[in-house]
């Protein structure tokens, strides 16, 4: 028996009240640190700060300004470029690594798993500093050791190469992390399915297409959505790697532009507007992605 009967009314009621009390800390923290700031930032997006203490109501003025702001569109384009690069380059590489590490023919799996996973343990700032050296146009490792193209590529100095440099750095840092998800998914597929397919004469590719991929669907959906959200929120890597988006905003992302407006330009209303536009972009893309991958479908 967990409680003793008592004559006090409170103790009689506590069975009903206690569960709410126990879940209350989460809701109190949520309201204070999430709910209130969310509503407050929505309100803020309708205002513009006038110095530190006063503000002025501008209605949807911040939203109309934003849609006519070329740097916002450039930042959006760069962010989308990174997201597409991540999904088309990083995730296939992560899946490939997972398949290799899941293969019975590969030796030293633990060491390889650690090696591929290790980059994610390095803070983004250090990654950016290291890759600054790696990408240097004239003395960097990439131009001097790997590329024999007869052309020194200005990875961080030429506008067209800045985002590819950021994407490749992202691959180095995050492919191993996503590989772990895929590996977990692969290890959850029942071996009997492959054995049955082999008996039926299926080759490796057919087994991959008809067993591996469909079985991995929930994992792929999860990794896709999480990677997409992470990509759209990209900030620290390009901020350090490109010294705040230089040259000519070629490395600017939405969150970087939000940060600059909020903290460097003291345009908090405008920054809140960028935040809300980003929220809607992420929400719409995530819903579309999940629908396309059939996550909402009844099995």
């Amino acid at each position: 028996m967990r409680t003793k009967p008592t004559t006090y009314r409170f103790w009689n009621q506590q069975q009903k009240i206690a569960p709410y009390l126990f879940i209350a800390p989460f809701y109190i923290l949520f309201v204070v640190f999430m709910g209130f700031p969310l509503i407050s930032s929505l309100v803020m997006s309708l205002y513009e700060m006038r110095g530190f203490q006063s503000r002025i109501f501008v209605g949807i003025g911040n939203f109309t300004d934003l849609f006519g702001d070329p740097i916002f569109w450039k930042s959006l384009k760069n962010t989308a470029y990174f997201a597409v690069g991540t999904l088309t380059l990083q995730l296939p590489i992560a899946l490939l690594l997972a398949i290799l590490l899941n293969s019975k023919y590969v030796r030293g799996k633990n060491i390889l798993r650690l090696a591929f996973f290790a980059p994610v343990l390095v803070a983004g700032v250090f990654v950016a500093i290291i890759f600054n050296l790696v990408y240097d146009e004239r003395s960097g490792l990439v131009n001097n050791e790997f590329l024999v193209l007869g052309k020194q590529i200005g990875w961080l100095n030429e506008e067209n190469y800045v985002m590819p440099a950021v994407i490749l750095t992202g691959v180095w840092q995050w492919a191993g992390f996503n590989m772990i998800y895929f590996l977990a998914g692969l290890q959850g597929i029942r071996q009997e399915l492959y054995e049955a397919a082999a008996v039926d004469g299926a080759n490796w590719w057919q087994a991959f297409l008809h067993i591996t991929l469909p079985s991995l669907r929930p994992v792929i959906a999860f990794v896709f959505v999480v990677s997409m959200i992470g990509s759209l929120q990209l900030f620290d890597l390009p901020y350090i790697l490109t010294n705040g988006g230089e040259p000519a905003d070629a490395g600017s992302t939405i969150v970087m532009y939000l940060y600059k407006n909020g903290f460097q330009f003291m345009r908090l209303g405008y920054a809140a507007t960028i935040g809300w536009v980003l929220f809607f972009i992420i929400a719409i893309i995530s819903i579309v992605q999940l629908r396309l991958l059939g996550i909402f479908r009844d099995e």
Partner: protein
Amino acid sequence: MFRLPIDAEAFPLGKGPMVMLVLFLVSTLFIFGRTEQEGESLEFWIFANTHYEEYQARVPIFEAQNPGVNVHLINFGNTMHDKLLASMLSNFGAPDLVEVEITSIGRFLKGAIDEVGFVDLRPRLESEGWMEKLVVSRFTPWSYRGRIFGIPHDLHPVVLLYRDDLFKAAGVEMTEVETWDDFIAAGKKATRDLDDDGEIDQYAIVLDRRTESDYFSLLLQQGGGFFDEEGNVIIDSELAIETLEFFTALFNEHEIATPVYGTWHGDPSNFAAMQDGKILSILAPDWYVGILKSQVPQMAGKWKAIPMPAWHPGGRRTTTRGGTMIGMTKQSRNPDRAWELLKFTYFDRSGLVNRYETTRIIPPLKSAWDAPIFKEPDTYLGGQPLGDLFIQLAPDLPPRYQNPYWSEGADLLNDAIFAAVTEKQTPREALTDLAEKVRALIAKDQGRWGEL
């Protein structure tokens, strides 16, 4: 055996929740039951590691001289300015004293002048006679609309640091260079393809074409700026356009300048290029010499310094780059004591001499300049007394007028410089576009809330 004084099983939902409740109560008591340290307390925020080392040694001396005063010195690093902004916005939690970096101060000046979160220090400076004792032009970055919101930590005069050995090898005596025309002539001799492979191996100067740092230094040397004293945008003035034309010509026409290796002058790749002899000179403020000493000590003896080449014979031979101020926030509960600490850290001669020893930073307090240390030969510069050179140049520093729109302006100026150097736009087009954008931004704000 130890027994709890109460029956834990009788507690609603049992022993576990009781333990949680006890822990909650104990931690609450611990958090809220702490007594404040006795005596007065001052909080001092900074962002620079080198300053932290200096003040860490100075604070105990101040505390010893002022019994009962506790100074909380906090180094927040690069995040400090954002924390300060948040504390000023919420009107809660700001320190008594704070150091602010020159490119960050503009955002704190937005809005009505009475809403600025810093105390106007002009009355204290004037009543105690400090203005005459400091380099007056150095107050411009920290002043706005006649009020002084900060006291300069430094002067940051700029010299031309050059590789004497390599210029001499090219037949150039740099001490004879007086104007930028002389420098171009010297630079053309020194910029060379040493192994005849068709590629230039050493450039006369390294310049940053991605950010405003070098261009803006040159513009200030000319007596120009982004904003004038009244806050008007003057970045499309003929002076500014001429300066950008000159800057781009160093790369594209005279071909004696190379873009900075990496993303800025302090990048390890840039230091590597210096060591490899690919870079023969650089525009160097005092703090940059300090960085070179700590980052590439192996280059000791290879550098020498001359005053910057002038735009015209007899013209200004220096400029200024970078800077830090100390300000007192309006949230300070003890402004008089804070003012004493401020004076102790910024106006104390022995402290300023110590500052030069560790960071090579020349102080704005003129009475400190006759200290013997500034005349001492500098081994890093092959025995040249660098402090003396900086001090000779210090009285001629150009003013740099501060403006709330500096951050937005500088961000766009970076793009304009890059566009001009990479010949996407002419210098005139780039700066005219830039000035129009910044004027439109200001006009829009003024349209919303009127003149401030």
